[in-house]
C-alpha cells in the first residue's frame, strides 16, 4: 500500500477491517477478517467499496436532484411540483425511473446501432470519472490526483464525443442539429473554462483539488471573482443549462441530440446530465468556496459543509434555469469568444502579476501565499472584476446589437380620424 492511498480515509478503514495491519502502521491495530496472504483481496474490496459508494451517491444524488429541481422550479413558477408519491413527492424520481425502464427501448432502423447504444454509457462514464478527484471531506476522496483540475476538464470533455455520437448515429436531423450546435458550443466554452482555472492554479501552485481546498484560507470566490464567474458560466454551458441549453432546446429542435432515445437509455442520459449539475456544483464549491472547510469543525463536519455549499450552487443553477430564456447559437459563440475569453485572460494576467509580486517576497515557491496576501488580492481583484465586466459588457453589447430598450412611441389616440 502506497502512502498515496493511506491518506484516503475510506480506503484505509476498509483495508484495515479486512486485511488487518500491514507493516505495523500507526493507523491500524490488530488483525483483519481475511487471513494472511489475502491482502490483495482487501485492497480490491476497499477499492470496490469506494467505487460503489461513489457511483451510487452520484446516481442517487441525481435522483434527489431531479426531485428537488422539479420542486424548486415549480415554486419559482408559483406551482407546487410533484407531491403525490411519497412525502412531498420525494419518490417521484423512482416512479419516473420505473416508467422509463419499462418503456420500449427503441433504436431507429437507420441508426448506427453500436454508436447509438454506446452513447449513454460514455456520458455516464465521463461523469462518474470526473467525480473521482472530488474531495468530499478531509481525506475522503477516491484519488488525489496531481493534475486534478485538468483531469476534470479532460474527462468531462469526453461527453462532447458522446453528444456527437448521439447526434450522428440517431440518423435524425434534429439530433444532428443538436449535435452540431453542441460540439461548436462545447469546444468554444472549454477554452474560457480552462483559462478561468489558471488563476486558481497559480495561487495554489498545484492542480490537486485537495491542495486547492487546503490553500483556501480565504474563499477563492473573493480572490478570483472573475475566474469564478467565467467558470460558472462556462460550466453551465458545458452542462447544457439555460441560458446555454441550445443543444437540447426543446422549443426548437425537440430534444436535440437525444431526440431518438427512449427507455433506459434516455434515463441514463438524463441521469448523467442531472448528476453533472451536482458534480459541477461540487467543483464550484471545492474550487471557489473552500470545499469541506467550514467556519468551525471542518474536520468533523467536512461533509456537511461541502453539502451545504453544493446545495447552494445547485440552488443557483435551478434559479437561473427558472428565470432566463436561451440565447441563439451565434450569440452564445460571441459570448464565449468576446466576453468570457477576454475576462478569463484578464483574470489570468492580473493573478499572474499578483502571484509573482507576492511570491517574490516569499521566496521562489508558489502556493505559499498567506491569508493577508489573499485578502489583499481579493481587495484588488473585486474592483478589477467589476471594471472588466463593465467594459466588456458594454463592448460585447454593441457587438450583439442591442439597442436601448426604449418603447415610447405609443401613438396618441387617433380619435379624430374619421372613416366615411
Amino acid at each position: 500500500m502506497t502512502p498515496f492511498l493511506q491518506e484516503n480515509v475510506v480506503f484505509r478503514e476498509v483495508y484495515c477491517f479486512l486485511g488487518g495491519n500491514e507493516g505495523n502502521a500507526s493507523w491500524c491495530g490488530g488483525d483483519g477478517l481475511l487471513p494472511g496472504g489475502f491482502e490483495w483481496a482487501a485492497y480490491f474490496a476497499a477499492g470496490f467499496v469506494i467505487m460503489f459508494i461513489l457511483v451510487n451517491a452520484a446516481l442517487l444524488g441525481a435522483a434527489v436532484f431531479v426531485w428537488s429541481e422539479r420542486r424548486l422550479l415549480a415554486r419559482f413558477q408559483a406551482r407546487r411540483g410533484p407531491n403525490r408519491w411519497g412525502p412531498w413527492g420525494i419518490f417521484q424520481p423512482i416512479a419516473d425511473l420505473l416508467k422509463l425502464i419499462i418503456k420500449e427501448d427503441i433504436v431507429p432502423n437507420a441508426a448506427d446501432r453500436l454508436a447509438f447504444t454506446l452513447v449513454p454509457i460514455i456520458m455516464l462514464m465521463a461523469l462518474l470519472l470526473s467525480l473521482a478527484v472530488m474531495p468530499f471531506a478531509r481525506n475522503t476522496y477516491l484519488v488525489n490526483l496531481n493534475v486534478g483540475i485538468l483531469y476534470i476538464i479532460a474527462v468531462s470533455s469526453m461527453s462532447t464525443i458522446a453528444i456527437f455520437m448521439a447526434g450522428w448515429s440517431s440518423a435524425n436531423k434534429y439530433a444532428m442539429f443538436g449535435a452540431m450546435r453542441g460540439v461548436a458550443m462545447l469546444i468554444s466554452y472549454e477554452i474560457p473554462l480552462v483559462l478561468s482555472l489558471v488563476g486558481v492554479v497559480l495561487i495554489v501552485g498545484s492542480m490537486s483539488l485537495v491542495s486547492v481546498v487546503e490553500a483556501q484560507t480565504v474563499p477563492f470566490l473573493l480572490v478570483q471573482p472573475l475566474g469564478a464567474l467565467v467558470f460558472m458560466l462556462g460550466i453551465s454551458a458545458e452542462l447544457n443549462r439555460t441560458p446555454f441549453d441550445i443543444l437540447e432546446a426543446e422549443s426548437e429542435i425537440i430534444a436535440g441530440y437525444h431526440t431518438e432515445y427512449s427507455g433506459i437509455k434516455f434515463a441514463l442520459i438524463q441521469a448523467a446530465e442531472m448528476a453533472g449539475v451536482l458534480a459541477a456544483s461540487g467543483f464550484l464549491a471545492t474550487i471557489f468556496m473552500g470545499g469541506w472547510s467550514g467556519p468551525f469543525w471542518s474536520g468533523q463536519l467536512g461533509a456537511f459543509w461541502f453539502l451545504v455549499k453544493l446545495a447552494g450552487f445547485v440552488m443557483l443553477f435551478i434559479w437561473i434555469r427558472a428565470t432566463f430564456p436561451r440565447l441563439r447559437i451565434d450569440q452564445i459563440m460571441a459570448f464565449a469568444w468576446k466576453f468570457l475569453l477576454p475576462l478569463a485572460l484578464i483574470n489570468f494576467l492580473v493573478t499572474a502579476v499578483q502571484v509573482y509580486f507576492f511570491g517574490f517576497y516569499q521566496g521562489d515557491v508558489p502556493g505559499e501565499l498567506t491569508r493577508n496576501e489573499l485578502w489583499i488580492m481579493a481587495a484588488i481583484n473585486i474592483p478589477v472584476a467589476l471594471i472588466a465586466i463593465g467594459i466588456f459588457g458594454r463592448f460585447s453589447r454593441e457587438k450583439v446589437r442591442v439597442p436601448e430598450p426604449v418603447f415610447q412611441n405609443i401613438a396618441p389616440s387617433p380619435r379624430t380620424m374619421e372613416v366615411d
Partner: protein
Amino acid sequence: MYGFGLAKGLMVTLKNFIRPPFTIQYPEERIPQHPRFRGEEFAWYEERCTGCASCAKYCPLGIIKIVTSEGGRSPQEGGHYDIDVFDIDIGRCMFCGLCVEACPYDALFMGSGFERGRYERQDLVITVDELREAVKKPSTWFRPQLEDSGYDPHKDSALDWRAVGREKWEWHQREKAGARIKFRPARVGDKTQEGDGEARS
C-alpha cells in the same frame, strides 16, 4: 450596467418563490365553481317534460335521442307523452347549453359535474334511467328563476320539479325594467347601426 435586467428578472422569480403557489391540489381542493357552470350531468325533470324534443332539435350536434309513446291519460287530464328513451351522448356533447335554452318547459337543466371519465364510449351516454335516478342539482345556467332564488347547486340540496319552474317568476323582469329599443325590419342593402338606439338609462 450589463446584466442588470437579468438580475431584476432573478428578483422577480425569487419573489414568486416565496409566495404561495397559485395551483390547487385537484381531487382534495377544488376551485369554487359558479352556479352557472355548464356541467356534465344533466338534470331532467320528467314531470315537466312533454317530450316535445325541442332540445334534440336545437342541439347543434344532434346527440340527444328521444323516443316517446302516447301516455295513458288524455291531455285534458294533464297527461303527456311517456318518455321511453332520452339518451344524451355526452361523449360528443360540447356543453353549449342550447338544449337547455331551447326547452320551453324548464324540464332540462345543465348539471355542475365534470368528472365523467370512462373507459368505454358507451358509458358516456346518459340514459333515461340515469337521468331519472340522478340527484337533481340543476345549474342556474339560462334559468334566471333559479339564479334569483340564490340557488347554488354545490351547497344547496336537490330541487324538486315544483321548485325549478318559472311560473312564479316574471320572465326577464329585471331586464325588461330598462328601456325598449327600436326595431326596424332590415332591407337588403340597408346600412345598419345608425346611432345607438335610445340613450342609456
